[in-house]
């Protein structure tokens, strides 16, 4: 039985639906990093799992118990799940050790001595024992976050949910918090971590959820997600590309409109002109001249461009449904069009997967 099982979870607000249909299973000992663009429901998912938000629809099972069912003792459920927040949420009027003891005395019914002893052990484990009698205001951000982790551990949770634990920290302090989380992994703690630290996510996780469009858009090992993402939006995010996307559905699509959008996209992102010309040329020669005549009246196709100003490269991807068709090897195609394609993008590759054709290439600065 999975430790946590989420089925068809939906969370809708009046103007926005951050979670549309979330399904996942979390096993004991897993470390799952949740990554994705801002506003895609990563934190909302954690807050739903911890019952800080009530989902609009769906089910969440913790150790087989539906925690959204009527009559469930939420405090009992939450005791299994610790949560660490971006802003630490320490009580400013309590000393560090008192912050750590509070849950154990008030909710677990431990004596003050037991809570103190355990609290000091935990502060020791996160390197904060020396500051036990200080107040939160005397601590740096990294130190506060380590205390917040110790406080969470004081409740003996079975899983810890981290909501961007390093986002509010000065970059110099990220390391100390990361090393505490790393030591928890070594002890076998189950963790779900919403993070924007890609290197951290890659290093520490056993599994990555890439969230986008209200879904767990892609789920895989760090090697898969960072090394060989299968889906377009994941790839664009991982490679930090600025995206352009156009859907094409019929023979009468707006060719001029798409060309003009490509030009606007390039202009807005200060992309060198030869990339614009190369993209428009590939789109016209490949799609208009070679692929479109082979498609039926209506179909599903898309053009995706991704610009990386860090690496000065442009990813070009065309996809279209239907039977496998590689225009690059079809000798009936317009010779001149194919010549221009080959000269513009010698490394252009065709692949066919799950009923979808893909033509993809990365254009680099030397592209004419």
């Amino acid at each position, binding site marked *: 039985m999975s430790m946590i099982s989420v089925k068809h979870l939906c969370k809708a607000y009046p103007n926005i639906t951050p979670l549309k249909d979330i399904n996942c299973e979390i096993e004991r000992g897993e470390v799952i990093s949740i990554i994705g663009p801002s506003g895609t429901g990563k934190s909302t998912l954690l807050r739903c799992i911890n019952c800080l938000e009530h989902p609009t629809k769906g089910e969440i099972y913790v150790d087989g118990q539906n925690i959204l069912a009527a009559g469930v003792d939420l405090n009992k459920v939450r005791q299994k799940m610790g949560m660490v927040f971006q802003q630490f949420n320490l009580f400013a009027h309590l000393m560090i050790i008192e912050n750590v003891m509070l849950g154990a005395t008030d909710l677990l019914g431990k004596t003050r001595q037991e809570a103190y002893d355990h609290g000091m052990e935990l502060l020791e484990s996160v390197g904060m024992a020396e500051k036990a009698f200080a107040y939160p205001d005397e601590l740096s951000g990294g130190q506060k976050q380590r205390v917040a982790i110790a406080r969470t551990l004081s409740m003996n949770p079975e899983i810890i949910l981290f909501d961007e634990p390093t986002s509010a920290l000065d970059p110099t302090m990220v390391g100390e918090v990361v090393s505490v989380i790393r030591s928890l992994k070594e002890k076998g703690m189950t963790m779900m971590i919403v993070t924007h630290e890609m290197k951290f996510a890659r290093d520490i996780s056993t599994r990555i959820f890439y969230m986008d469009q209200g879904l767990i858009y892609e789920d895989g090992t760090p090697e898969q997600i960072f090394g060989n993402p299968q889906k377009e939006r994941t790839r664009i995010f991982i490679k930090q590309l600025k995206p352009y996307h156009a859907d094409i559905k019929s023979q009468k699509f707006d060719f*001029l409109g798409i*060309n003009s959008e490509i030009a606007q996209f390039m202009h807005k992102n200060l992309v060198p002109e*030869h990339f614009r010309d190369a993209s428009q040329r590939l789109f016209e*020669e490949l799609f208009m001249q070679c692929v479109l005549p082979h498609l039926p009246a209506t179909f599903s196709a898309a053009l995706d461009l991704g610009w990386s100003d860090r690496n000065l490269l442009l990813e070009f991807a065309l996809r279209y449904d239907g039977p496998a068709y590689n225009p690059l090897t079809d000798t009936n195609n*317009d010779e*001149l*069009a194919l010549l*221009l394609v080959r000269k513009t993008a010698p490394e252009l590759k065709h692949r066919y997967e799950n009923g979808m054709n893909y033509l993809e290439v990365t254009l680099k600065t030397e592209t*004419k």
Partner: protein
Amino acid sequence: MKITKTQAGQTITYVVSGRLDTVTAPDLGKEIDAVTPDIKELVLDFDGLEYISSAGIRTVLTAQKKMNKQGVLKLRHVCPAVLDVFELTGFADILTIEK
């Protein structure tokens, strides 16, 4: 794309600006079809032409073929992006491109 035609004796000049692509090339193609056999010099002035596709190149090649029989074709004011395309395809060598 915008095409402006001027004629001086047996010379016709088309000033072509914008984009010469799948959508617009047929318009220039019609103009070239209409060039009569008495014309000895056809000038395609690409001042303001930003982009040319295979369809545009084919139109230029059609003009070249036609003028081979009756006179000369000259390309003028070809911008670097368009010249790149002629060079990529190898047609820069067979066309008269005035610098």
